[in-house]
């Protein structure tokens, strides 16, 4: 049985290879089905281990594909590690990935590059599977860079638009900066542990590093730098909102099933290292908090439906890093899971809206869509309620678990978390009401065109809506009589540590929950009043953007502009200076002047060789005089 594990990544890889090599032979209508088939088959193979894992019967194993880099004393295998953590991610990747593929068949049906699109999509699933399946850091890194490449290809999919290419380039380079951090962390680990296999590294780390807290702090910080790139945390988050340049299902894939979850996976996988470095964990928490708040503040004023969702992802990822920073790894993965459900749902839902609107993404020109797009409306509502944390939807349980852990650390942490959650609720419902309520504000042509999406698109929406509704039940906390099934699931073989018994009483927990819930409900009511009752539609020319706060939020705190002027521009100036000054003027200048010098010397000395006997005689006398002089002096 174990030997079939190679099929899981190979099926999407085969899909990619077939679609890209035989692009011209495959009918356009067929490519989507082929790609979907590849991912669905992969999902079925995953189930083979996922179902036993759910029952707690999975025996973890490593499957060596081949000896990758062999250097005498050290072998680096291209090997896969199947355990409860990797199989969980594999199920999300292939499961949600399948739904996104299915949806894409309808969404992309009239695009000329559909075959190219699906080949990239398959490659994306492949890379992400390699990332989570690898049994050592280098295989993870291969997948890590692979998803970077795929996001580059897909964000810039509509290559004729230069702004999209900018976004693609930005995504890759920001990720690469993070990757370097990861690479350095990995090299330092190898230098001190002498291996990069998870098993060896995690086993030996406590011994190797227990006397060297500084070193492990540096290593984990470097690994975390990698995570900030992939998982869009401050300061490397600005690529993710721009990444919506790609087709909408790609955003769903990047934001929900793949890519951004990589950082959380990596930290959870290496939680033993992070537990050895409490300073790093604190920094992870602070960065997570900063990201959650900053992104949410920006989300408040955005008018592009996908941009709002993108900032909400950044903010939700911040929540996950808050959990990681507090050592609540299983809670972070729990939130990854519920977030995967509702964010895939919301992005695909927004795709359905954009599809109906004929490509329009600005919520100022939408409104009242609930009548024309009933399925999209209902499913989008479920997604919005889930992300806002309304019980008993999925987001409630995962967000509440994070808030509970936060309160244990400090009520201030809890307060910050609730504040971020309220911001989320506000911008999500603002977008929701502006899109689906009120009257239609688009053109007449758009109004005629409005239609519910086909079954291929609504079916994935329905499935994801179900998951967003019930996905939280996998980790019902003790206060509701649950047993935190999911945290125990991940704790098999002590893979991911279980949190200690909660120190806060059940009553306190109820009160906290109630406060959070009341505040969330009040926020929803507030948005309802301002956007539905009072028709506070943001104007097309942003005339309300007069207050400083609004301006800052609407312009994303000018972070992009700041990066451009402190990083991009100086880089180009530096490279131009190095080229035109050091390279051309100094280095090549020296070479040229040596050449010219030899030439000049040659033409100078040439005059001595004049052929005139008188001159020669003169030089002879001078020479003799010189020799005599030297002899006298010495």
């Amino acid at each position, binding site marked *: 049985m174990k030997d079939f594990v190679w099929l899981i990544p190979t099926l999407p890889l085969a899909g990619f290879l077939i679609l890209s090599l035989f692009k011209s032979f495959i009918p356009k209508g067929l490519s989507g089905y082929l790609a979907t088939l590849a991912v669905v088959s992969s999902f079925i193979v995953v189930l083979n281990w996922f179902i036993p894992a759910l029952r707690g019967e999975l025996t973890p194993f490593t499957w060596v594909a*081949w*000896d*990758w*880099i*062999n*250097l*005498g*004393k050290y072998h680096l295998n291209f090997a896969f590690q199947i355990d409860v953590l990797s199989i969980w991610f594999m199920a999300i990747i292939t499961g949600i990935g399948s739904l996104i593929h299915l949806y894409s068949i309808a969404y992309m049906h009239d695009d000329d590059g559909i075959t190219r699109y699906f080949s990239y999509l398959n490659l994306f699933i492949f890379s992400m599977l390699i990332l989570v399946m690898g049994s050592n850091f*280098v295989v993870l*890194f*291969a997948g890590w*860079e*692979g998803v970077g*490449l795929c996001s*580059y290809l897909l964000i*810039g999919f509509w*290559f*004729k*638009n*230069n702004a999209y*290419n*900018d976004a*693609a*380039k930005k995504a*890759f*380079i920001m990720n*690469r*900066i993070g990757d*370097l951090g990861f*690479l*350095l962390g990995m*090299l*330092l680990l*190898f*230098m001190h542990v002498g291996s990069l296999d998870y098993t060896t590294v995690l086993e030996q780390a406590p011994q190797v590093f227990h006397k060297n807290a500084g070193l492990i702090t540096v290593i984990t910080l470097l690994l975390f730098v990698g995570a900030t790139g992939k998982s869009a945390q401050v300061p490397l988050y600005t690529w993710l909102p721009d990444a919506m340049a790609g087709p909408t299902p790609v955003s769903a894939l990047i934001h929900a099933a793949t890519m951004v979850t990589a950082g959380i996976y990596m930290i959870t996988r290496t939680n033993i290292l992070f537990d050895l470095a409490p300073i790093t964990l604190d920094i992870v928490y602070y960065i997570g908090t900063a990201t959650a708040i900053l992104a949410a503040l920006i989300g408040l004023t955005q008018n592009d439906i996908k941009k709002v969702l993108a900032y909400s992802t950044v903010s939700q990822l911040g929540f996950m890093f808050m959990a990681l920073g507090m050592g609540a790894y299983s809670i972070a993965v729990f939130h990854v899971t519920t977030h995967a459900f509702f964010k895939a749902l919301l992005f695909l839902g927004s795709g359905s809206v954009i599809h109906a609107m004929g490509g329009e993404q600005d919520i100022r020109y939408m409104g009242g869509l609930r009548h024309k797009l009933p399925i999209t409306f209902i499913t989008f509502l479920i997604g919005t309620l889930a992300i806002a944390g309304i019980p008993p939807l999925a987001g409630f349980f995962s967000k509440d678990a994070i808030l509970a852990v936060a309160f244990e650390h400090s009520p201030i942490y809890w307060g910050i978390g609730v504040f971020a959650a309220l911001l989320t609720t506000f911008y999500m419902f603002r977008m929701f009401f502006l899109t689906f309520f009120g009257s239609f504000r688009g053109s007449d042509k758009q109004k005629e065109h409005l239609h519910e999406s086909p079954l291929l698109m609504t079916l994935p929406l329905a499935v994801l809506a179900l998951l967003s509704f019930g996905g939280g039940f996998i980790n019902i906390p003790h206060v509701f009589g649950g047993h935190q099934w999911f945290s125990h699931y991940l704790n098999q073989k002590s893979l991911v540590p279980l949190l200690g018994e909660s120190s806060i009483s059940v009553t306190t927990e109820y009160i906290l929950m109630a406060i959070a819930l009341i505040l969330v409900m009040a926020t929803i009511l507030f948005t309802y009043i301002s956007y539905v009752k009072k028709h506070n539609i943001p104007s097309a020319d942003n005339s309300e953007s007069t207050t400083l706060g609004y301006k800052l939020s609407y312009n994303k705190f000018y972070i992009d502009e700041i990066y451009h002027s402190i990083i991009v521009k100086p*880089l*180009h100036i*530096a*490279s*131009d200076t*190095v*080229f*035109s000054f*050091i*390279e051309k003027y100094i*280095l*090549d200048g020296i*070479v040229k002047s040596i*050449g010219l010098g030899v030439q000049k010397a040659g033409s100078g000395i040439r005059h001595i060789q004049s052929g005139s006997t008188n001159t020669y005689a003169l030089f002879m006398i001078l020479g003799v005089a010189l020799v005599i002089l030297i002899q006298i002096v010495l």
Partner: protein
Amino acid sequence: MESFGLTILLWLPLLSLLVLLVGKYHQPGTLRTITIVTTAIQLIIAVLLFIQMVPEYFPLHTSDSFVYKDFHPWFTLPLGQLGYLSVNYFVAVDGLTISLLLLSSIVLFVGALVSHTIQFQEKGYYALYLLLCISIPGCFVAQDLFLFFLFFEFMLLPMYFLIGIWGGVNKEYAAIKFFIYTLVGSLLILVSFIILYASTYSPTEMVRLSGHSDITVQSIQQAVMDKTITTSDMVRSLSIQDVTKPTNIVPGSWLDPASTTQWLGISARMWVFIALLIGFIIKLPAIPFHTWLPDAHVEAPTAVSVVLAGILLKIGGYGLIRIVWPIFPVEAMQASTVIAIIGVVSIVYAAYVALAQDDLKKMIAYSSVSHMGFVLLGIASGTVEGISGAVYQLFSHGLISALLFILVGILYERTHDRSIAHYKGLLNKMPAFTVVVTIAFFASLGLPGMSGFIAEILVLIGAFQASQVYSTIPIGVTIVATIGLVVTAGYYLWTLQRMFFGKFSVHTSVDAHTLQDLTLMEKVVTYLLCGLVILFGVLPSVLLDTIGPWMQTWVQFLQQSIQ
């Protein structure tokens, strides 16, 4: 008998050269066909030699460490006070040679395939090209430095003419710059070899030439120690086996480690080490001896650029690994921090300069300098990982740079314009071309799954190890090297965006009708190279298993020498 293949590989082009020079060929393409067939046979033999090679652990540069040996006494030259110079025709293969022999066969074959752009004086061109097909593999298999130097010079001369005659607008300037630079390098190498000759003797050669059964290596060594043999009676050889053996140094000579001779406070050994180092670094090239490369590349015709970047630069790295480090292990270790810094500066500096280029070919030329910096860093580390990475980088960069220069050539041939700013949205017109360019760019920026990644990660691991094992390379230096990786991603992606993506448009000076997608022939060549780049990225063991043992013996040799 097993050396038969090697002999054919090496001298077959000479036969082709005769055929080419004697006959009269009016049919267009005949000369190219002869060259392609010749290089194809060379490639097949090289692959067979590679497959048959059994990796074994023998001490570095001992007679067991070589396979496919072909040894013939050549001549012995009496040199008065300096004794006798014994020169042998000694060609053989070992773990280091085989990788570069395979690479040179691939690159020369590919170079012959893309030589169709040569439109005039074809006979001269192919004659010189066939000469390269002898001298380049010759450099790698020659195990006698006299022979090595002959091949080395016979490689530079054809190169000078190939650039100077078939080059672009500024060909004379580029060719003369290339020539003078390499001449300076050759001169430094030659002088070092002469000093080496004067400072070593060869007991094995003396035994062989004496013919007496009672004269043994031990007795000769004893006699030299006792000074009963004078320097004018010594037989000296420049065989690599002989000159890398520390016991073969004549006591009291310049290169005697015990010698206290110093100039400007630097020992004679260190001076010779520096001279050899610069000689080979010019070829590599590394900062600040690299300024010949961009000019030479820009003016050279495509096939010559391919050979230049694909193999010629590798001889610099090869010389450092084969000759400089084994002869001067102590000096090399002493200087390794400085050498690593030169490597890192090359990586970062050349990447920055590449970012500022508007000429596509120049950008790729600078990227070559940047990538060769990794070779220097790997060698300087003196670790198994580092040296394996350096050799892997030589191999991998040979393939990737060949691919990149072919791609530039494909575009230039169509439009005679290499300015990045003159193109936009080429993907619309040339989709297959764009796909291959994208693959080549990502390979060059070190994406996992392609050969460059394996090389670079090995070098970085090695450099990190060096800080621990020898405390030679400070970690900070290696960390700076990784900045180069980001800048590299920057210039490649920026180029992709500017030239290939967006809406199609070209500068008025470019004729848009000439922009046809890849021809079948171009597809074959570029897909082949892409395939190899991916093969050696996914299955590096294909190469590493064969060359790995040699790398370990190299490090062992180094470590024993510095103890």
